[in-house]
């Protein structure tokens, strides 16, 4: 009658699935002659199009990944400063790639694609409780498949270059590039534009991007500066667009929004000088 609540770890053979790895209990496998000279199938990721597609990532999965990333960095870093720098570095690489990708995507004529939004993290799963409950619920599929687009790109015949007539020029004005970050990049990353874009009234090289509820750090209690990942993305983006700057995150609760975060962007002096020379004060 006693009921096992927690399943003990078992040495059940059923859990081992056959894998392609080296099976040390069998020894080296003899490869068949026709297997040896078969061309390896290239990863699909290289033949994928850079085109938009509606893609949603489970927020739960992303949050767990982010959590483990934070924990790893936290363990490895010696000081708060060190922690922020490392976390910034993780985001930086994403930012530098986004400049090219988002510019390319924005060059595609709008009537080409039916689905015009692409979200990296826009929405979430309702399934996190179902994962731990096994039998209950439906477990909604969170990764909406790209079935509506695969027919173009499956064999790589339809190339994106043929669609683009003229490339969108990279933004050169400070305000334009900030608008791009505030609108396009934020929408790509988080599924909505950031809540505000403000110019500092005290120093003219400082701008602020405001997010009322940071998507990635919404589950992390205040007091730790985990928002430096997003700072890294912004900084990587602006740096590789030739707007060198420093970005820092500040928690600024306001009324009901107690997770409101402000990303402070401080451009280097020469960026402002260049802006003045080119476009007038």
């Amino acid at each position: 009658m006693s009921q096992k609540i927690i399943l003990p770890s078992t040495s059940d053979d059923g859990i081992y699935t056959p894998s392609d790895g080296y099976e040390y209990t069998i020894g080296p496998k003899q490869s068949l002659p026709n297997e040896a000279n078969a061309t390896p199938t290239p990863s699909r990721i290289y033949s994928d199009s850079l085109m938009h597609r509606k893609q949603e990532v489970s927020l739960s999965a992303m949050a767990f990944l982010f959590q483990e990333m934070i924990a790893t960095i936290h363990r490895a870093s010696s000081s708060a400063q060190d922690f922020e720098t490392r976390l910034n570095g993780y985001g930086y690489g994403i930012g530098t790639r986004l400049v090219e990708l988002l510019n390319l995507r924005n060059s595609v004529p709008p009537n080409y694609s039916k689905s015009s939004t692409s979200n990296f993290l826009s929405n979430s799963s309702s399934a996190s409780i179902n994962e731990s409950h096994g039998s209950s619920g439906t477990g909604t599929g969170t990764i909406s498949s790209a079935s509506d687009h695969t027919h173009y790109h499956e064999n790589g015949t339809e190339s994106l270059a043929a669609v683009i007539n003229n490339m969108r020029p990279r933004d050169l004005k400070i305000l334009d590039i900030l608008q791009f970050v505030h609108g396009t990049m934020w929408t790509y990353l988080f599924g909505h534009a950031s809540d505000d874009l403000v110019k500092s009234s005290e120093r003219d090289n400082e701008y602020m991007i405001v997010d009322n509820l940071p998507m990635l750090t919404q589950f992390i209690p205040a007091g730790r500066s985990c928002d430096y990942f997003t700072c890294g993305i912004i900084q990587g983006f602006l740096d590789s667009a030739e707007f060198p700057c420093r970005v820092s995150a500040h928690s600024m609760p306001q009324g009901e929004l107690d997770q409101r975060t402000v990303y402070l962007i401080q451009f280097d002096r020469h960026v402002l000088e260049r802006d003045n020379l080119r476009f007038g004060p």
Partner: protein
Amino acid sequence: MAVRMLLVINKSGGLIYHRSFEGDVDKGLNSNDYLILASILHGSFAIATQLTPKALQLSQSSSKNIDYTVPYIPYVGMPRGRTSSERSKYGASAPQGKLGSFKGDDFFKESFQSWNRSGVRQLCTDQFTMYIYQTMTGLKFVVACSQGTLSPANPSSSNNIFNIHVADNFLRKIYCLYSDYVMKDPFYSLEMPIKSTLFDKKVKQMVDNLV
């Protein structure tokens, strides 16, 4: 009907979260007493199976098809009393963030299985009623309320099964909050006391919504 106390007990019987929502509940109980209380609860929960009358056990084991499904009771602990304009105001400022990683306006909308199959589900005394919800992994959520039911819609409900179902719905939502604000906190170590201020805040909101 008021919620007086909420406990979270981990699978080995340790108290990892306790919070009382009435000032006078705390009198005479220090944190050590709470730990002991939680362990006793955990222990008596475990031996409750043995206390079940033999006839009931036999009838249970003979008919394997007992339905442990708990029906979904809409919007327990959700801000449904709010006007739609107020909700849309919140919706505009925080588009998806209202329920963390859960979509829609409620955490779940379908009936679910109760994993609490042989332990205590409800404890009635003259002073309070206690409900226990157990998750698949052995975590226990315990709520003590001053009257029999947690349902704000019909506070004088004497339908006991219904009361248990309301409490299960409520505690499962606390579990949803736990899965978001505790399990996704990188600075939380497993099986240790919960100190997340966000979890505190969300639990408080949900309890307030019950009234």
